[in-house]
C-alpha cells in the first residue's frame, strides 16, 4: 500500500535534462535585443570621456540635422524625475547617499557616465549622430584608488561626503580582538587586495520601453534579475507614479552574475523618452559601454592580521578594509562589503575573537555592487589566504590547521560573534577529507618533494569555504539595522486547472540556473502529476506574484520553498474536497502519488485531476469552500543557509616565465539536498571558473586619470575554454534545517571557493623561493616579479 511517507520521489534528485533548452539550442530564445516593436526608436548615448568634469555646454544641433534622428535629450530635460534609489543603506550611509541620475546633470564623475541620449529610426544612424553631439567639459582632478580618495586634499566627488567616505562600518569585538593579539604567540599580517572585476554576462544589458498615453501605462522589457523590484523602484522612487502604471518583463536573460540585479539609468531614460515621444524606445549596451558604465565587483584593499598559538590554534582575526564603491551608490552596493563580507570573515573556523572595520569610499570609477558571491568571495579569500600564511609561519600542514580550527558539528547552530544569524548546519571535515582523498594528498607531498629536487615548482592549494545563501529573514536584514529597504521573502502561486494541468508562477527570475526544470521536478513529485503537466511561469510583473528575484543563491532555498508551501496548501484543500467527494472525514484522507484516498482504502481514490475538476466546476463543494485549487504563498525564511565545501587545486609554476599551469581542480561542495545534480554541477563548474579567472586572469584597471584600460573584451581577460581546467566534482550532503527542502543554494559556491584555492597552490609551489604572499591576478609578470622579489 502506498502511503505519504514511503512514496519515493520520481523526479527530485534526478539529473533531468533541462526543459529550457530546446528553445535555446535552436536559436528560438527571446533575449532583449530580439524584441522589436512597431515604430521603435533606437538609442545611442553620448558618454563622458572624462573621469571627473563639469559639463559646460551641450550642442546637439549637428546631430539633430542628421536624417533619421528624432530627438536628443540631456540630463537637464529629465529634471522631472528623481535620481535612482539606493535600496540597501547598510552601515548608516543615509547622509552620504549619492546615486546616478538618468543622465548626468552639470558634473560627470566616471568615464562612460551618460551625458546625452540620441534617438533615431535606426541603430546605425543613432550611433552616427551620437558622435555629432558636441559636449564641452571643464576637466576636474580625479581619484580612482580608495586609499588615495580619503586622503586630505584628494579630489572631492560629492558635497555631502567629506573625504569621499560613504560609510565607516564595523563588526565584531574590537577590545577582545586587540587583547587576543596582545597575548598571541604568533601574528601574521598581510595586505590583501581583492581586485576589481567586471561581471561580464555574455549578453550586455538593455531596456525596451513603451508608453500608452491613453492609459498612462508603461511596459518595460529589461535584462533584469529582479523585475518586481525594478517596478517598485522606478515607480515609487524615480517617476513618482503608481506602481500599477508599470509592467516589467524580463525575457530570456543572457547571464547576470549580479550585474543585472540593479536599477540602471537606461531604465529611467528609455521610459522618460518613450513617454515624451509616444514611441517605443530601445537601448542595448555595446560591450565597451557595459564595461565602462554597468557595475563592477569586489575592489577591496585590506590589511589582515591573524594570530594564534604554535600548536595551530587560531585565536584572533583583525581586518581593516577599504571598499571602493565607485562614483555613486548602486542599488545594493553598501550591503556587499558589510553584511555579506564583514560578518563572515572568520569562515569555517571557530575563532574566538574577530573584528572587521570597513570604510566605503567614492572614487571616479564605475559603480561597484554585487558580483557573483558578493562579499563572500572577498571574505573567504581573505581568511583562507591568512590561514595558509599562518600554517606556513608555524610550519604546520595547512590541512591540519584547517581541521584543528573547524567549527565542530556539535557547535551548530553556530554564532560567529560578527552579528550574523547562526550558521544553520555544517560538517566541514568530511568535505576536506574527501577532497584530500580525491587529490591523493599524501602521495602529492612526496611527488612535490621530488619535483623540487628537480627544480620544478608544483604546489597544492586548499580552500575550505562557507557562504551565506538565501539572505533573509526580512526582520533581520530590514529591521535589525542592516539597512535593507525592503523584505527578502519570495513568492509562488500554484493553480491546478480544470484539466488537471498545473501552473506555477514564481517571483524568482531564472537566467541560466535551470529553475524551470528544478521547480517542475519538485511540483511533479509533490502533486504526483506528470512532469510534463507542470508549467513554470516567471519574469512578468503582470501575472506573477511580487517577488524579489534571483541572486544570492536564493531561488531554490527561498523561491523553491515558497512553491513547496503553496503545494502543501493545494494538497490540504484537495484532501478536504476529496473527503467531501468520498463522504469521509478529512482527517482520514491521505494524499499520495497524485491521489487522495481514505487511509487504508486506496482503491477508491480521487485523482488530483478529478478533484481539480470538482473544485473548478464547483457544483458540489464542502460548506464554505471557495472554488478552484489556487494557492499563493510568501516564504520568509527563519534564517539564511550556509553552504560549504573544500576545493583543492594543483599548479605547476614555470620559474623562468612565471606561467602558472593549473593542472587539477577538485571541488567537494555541500549545498544540502540536490534536486537536480546535473544542474547543480553546472552551477559549480561555472562558479569555479569565474573564481579561477580572478586568481589568474581578470582585473579591471583604471589609470590615474580614471581611464578604464581594460575597457573591452580585448583587454579584460575572461577565460576561454583553453584557459579553464578540467574540473572534478563531488558532494557531501548536509541538509539545511532552515527549509523543508533541505537545500542550501549552489549558484555562488564555486566562485566563493576558487580564487584562494589557486593562489594558495601558487604560493605553496613557490615556497622554496621564499614567496609567502602575492596579489591576484597571478599573471606571469606578477609571478615572475614575486619570484625575483620585485613585488
Amino acid at each position, binding site marked *: 500500500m502506498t502511503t505519504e511517507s514511503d512514496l519515493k520521489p520520481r523526479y527530485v534528485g534526478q539529473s533531468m535534462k533541462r526543459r529550457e533548452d530546446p528553445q535555446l539550442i535552436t536559436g528560438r530564445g527571446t533575449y532583449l535585443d530580439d524584441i522589436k516593436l512597431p515604430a521603435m526608436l533606437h538609442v545611442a548615448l553620448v558618454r563622458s570621456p572624462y573621469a571627473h568634469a563639469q559639463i559646460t555646454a551641450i550642442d546637439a544641433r549637428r546631430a539633430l540635422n542628421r536624417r533619421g534622428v528624432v530627438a536628443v535629450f540631456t540630463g537637464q530635460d529629465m529634471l522631472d524625475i528623481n535620481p535612482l534609489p539606493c535600496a540597501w543603506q547598510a552601515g548608516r550611509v543615509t547622509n552620504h547617499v549619492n546615486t546616478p541620475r538618468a543622465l548626468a546633470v552639470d558634473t560627470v564623475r566616471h568615464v562612460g557616465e551618460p551625458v546625452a541620449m540620441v534617438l533615431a529610426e535606426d541603430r546605425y544612424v543613432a550611433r552616427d549622430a551620437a558622435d555629432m553631439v558636441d559636449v564641452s567639459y571643464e576637466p576636474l582632478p580625479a581619484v580612482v584608488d580608495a586609499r588615495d580618495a580619503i586622503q586630505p586634499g584628494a579630489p572631492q566627488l560629492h558635497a555631502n561626503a567629506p573625504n569621499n567616505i560613504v560609510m565607516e562600518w564595523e563588526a565584531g569585538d574590537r577590545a577582545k580582538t586587540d587583547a587576543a593579539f596582545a597575548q598571541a604567540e604568533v601574528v601574521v599580517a598581510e595586505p590583501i587586495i581583492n581586485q576589481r572585476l567586471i561581471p561580464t554576462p555574455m549578453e550586455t544589458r538593455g531596456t525596451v520601453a513603451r508608453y500608452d498615453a491613453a492609459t498612462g501605462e508603461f511596459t518595460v522589457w529589461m535584462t533584469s534579475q529582479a523585475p518586481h523590484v525594478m517596478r517598485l523602484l522606478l515607480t515609487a522612487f524615480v517617476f513618482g507614479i503608481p506602481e500599477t502604471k508599470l509592467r516589467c518583463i524580463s525575457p530570456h536573460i543572457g*547571464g547576470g552574475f549580479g550585474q543585472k540585479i540593479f536599477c540602471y539609468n537606461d531604465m529611467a531614460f528609455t521610459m522618460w523618452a518613450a513617454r515624451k515621444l509616444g514611441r517605443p524606445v530601445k537601448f542595448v549596451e555595446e560591450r565597451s559601454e557595459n564595461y565602462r558604465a554597468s557595475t563592477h565587483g569586489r575592489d577591496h584593499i585590506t590589511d589582515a592580521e591573524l594570530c594564534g598559538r604554535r600548536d595551530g590554534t587560531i585565536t584572533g582575526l583583525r581586518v581593516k578594509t577599504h571598499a571602493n564603491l565607485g562614483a555613486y551608490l548602486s542599488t545594493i552596493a553598501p550591503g556587499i562589503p558589510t553584511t555579506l563580507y564583514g560578518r563572515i570573515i572568520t569562515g569555517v573556523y571557530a575563532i574566538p575573537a574577530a573584528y572587521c572595520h570597513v570604510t566605503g569610499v567614492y572614487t571616479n570609477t564605475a559603480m561597484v555592487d554585487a558580483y557573483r558571491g558578493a562579499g563572500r568571495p572577498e571574505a573567504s579569500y581573505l581568511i583562507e589566504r591568512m590561514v595558509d600564511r599562518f600554517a606556513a609561519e608555524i610550519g604546520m600542514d595547512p590541512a591540519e590547521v584547517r581541521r584543528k580550527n573547524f567549527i565542530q558539528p556539535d557547535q551548530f547552530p553556530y554564532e560567529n560573534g560578527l552579528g550574523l544569524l547562526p550558521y544553520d548546519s555544517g560538517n566541514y571535515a568530511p568535505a576536506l577529507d574527501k577532497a584530500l582523498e580525491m587529490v591523493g594528498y599524501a602521495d602529492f607531498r612526496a611527488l612535490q618533494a621530488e619535483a623540487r629536487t628537480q627544480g620544478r615548482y608544483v604546489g597544492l592549494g586548499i580552500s575550505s569555504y562557507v557562504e551565506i545563501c538565501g539572505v533573509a529573514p526580512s526582520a533581520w536584514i530590514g529591521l535589525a539595522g542592516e539597512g535593507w529597504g525592503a523584505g527578502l521573502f519570495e513568492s509562488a502561486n500554484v493553480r491546478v486547472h480544470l484539466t488537471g494541468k498545473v501552473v506555477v508562477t514564481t517571483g524568482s527570475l531564472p537566467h541560466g540556473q535551470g529553475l524551470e526544470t528544478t521547480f517542475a521536478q519538485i511540483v511533479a513529485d509533490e502533486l504526483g502529476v506528470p512532469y510534463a503537466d507542470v508549467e513554470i511561469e516567471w519574469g512578468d510583473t503582470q501575472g506573477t506574484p511580487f517577488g524579489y528575484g534571483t541572486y544570492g543563491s536564493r531561488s531554490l532555498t527561498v523561491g523553491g520553498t515558497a512553491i513547496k508551501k503553496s503545494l502543501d496548501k493545494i494538497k490540504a484543500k484537495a484532501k478536504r474536497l476529496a473527503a467531501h467527494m468520498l463522504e469521509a472525514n478529512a482527517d482520514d484522507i491521505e494524499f499520495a502519488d497524485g491521489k487522495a484516498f481514505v487511509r487504508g482504502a486506496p482503491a477508491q481514490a480521487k485523482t488530483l485531476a478529478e478533484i481539480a475538476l470538482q473544485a473548478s466546476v464547483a457544483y458540489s463543494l464542502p460548506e464554505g469552500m471557495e472554488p478552484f485549487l489556487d494557492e499563493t504563498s510568501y516564504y520568509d525564511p527563519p534564517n539564511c543557509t550556509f553552504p560549504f565545501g573544500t576545493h583543492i587545486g594543483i599548479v605547476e609554476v614555470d620559474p623562468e616565465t612565471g606561467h602558472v599551469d593549473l593542472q587539477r581542480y577538485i571541488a567537494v561542495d555541500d549545498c544540502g539536498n540536490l534536486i537536480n545534480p546535473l544542474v547543480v554541477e553546472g552551477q559549480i563548474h561555472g562558479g569555479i571558473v569565474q573564481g579561477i579567472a580572478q586568481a589568474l586572469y581578470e582585473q579591471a584597471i583604471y589609470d590615474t586619470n580614471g581611464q578604464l584600460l581594460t575597457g573591452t573584451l580585448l583587454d579584460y581577460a575572461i577565460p576561454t*575554454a583553453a584557459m579553464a581546467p578540467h574540473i572534478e566534482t563531488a558532494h557531501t550532503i548536509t541538509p539545511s534545517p532552515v527549509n523543508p527542502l533541505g537545500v542550501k543554494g549552489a549558484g555562488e559556491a564555486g566562485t566563493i571557493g576558487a580564487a584562494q584555492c589557486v593562489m594558495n597552490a601558487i604560493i605553496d609551489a613557490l615556497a622554496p623561493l621564499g614567496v609567502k604572499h602575492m596579489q591576484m591576478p597571478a599573471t606571469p609578470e606578477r609571478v615572475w616579479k614575486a619570484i625575483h622579489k620585485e613585488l
Partner: protein
Amino acid sequence: MTKITLTVNGTRYTRDVEPRTLLVHFLREQLNLTGTHIGCDTSQCGACVVHLNGVSVKSCTTLAVQCDGAEITTIEGLAPEGTLHPLQEAFWELHGLQCGYCTPGMIMSAADLLAKNPHPTPSEIRHGLEGNLCRCTGYENIVRAVSSAAEKMGSPDA
C-alpha cells in the same frame, strides 16, 4: 544601398543593404533570424558565429555585402526543422548551456571544428573553441558535449 542576393538556411533572399551593414545585423534585423547573438564589439566572443559557405565566421566582423552570392547557415538552419543536430542533442543532454546566450555561436563553431577534426581530444576541443566565450558553464560540459557529439557523429549508425 547595394543589392545583394544570398541563400540563408536554404532560402534565397534579395535585399538592399547599406554597404556598411554587418552580416549579424542583416540576419537579425532584416531576416529576423535572432538566434545569432552579439556579445562584444571587438570580435572576441563568438556569440555571432555562423557558417559562410560552410566555414565558421564571426558575423559581427563580416559585411553583408561580402556575402553576395554566398550560402549562410545560422543556428536556426543547422538541422532540418523539427530535428536536432547531434551537437544540439549533446548540448541538451550534457547540460552544455545555462543562459544559452553563447550557445548558438558555440554550436556553430563546434560544428566547424568537427568538420575539420572529427575526433578531437578534449584539449583540441578547448583550443578549437577559443574564439567563443561562455561565462556560465566553465566550459566543462561544453567540452563533454562536443566530445559526445563527435563520438555519435563518427559512429556507423549516425
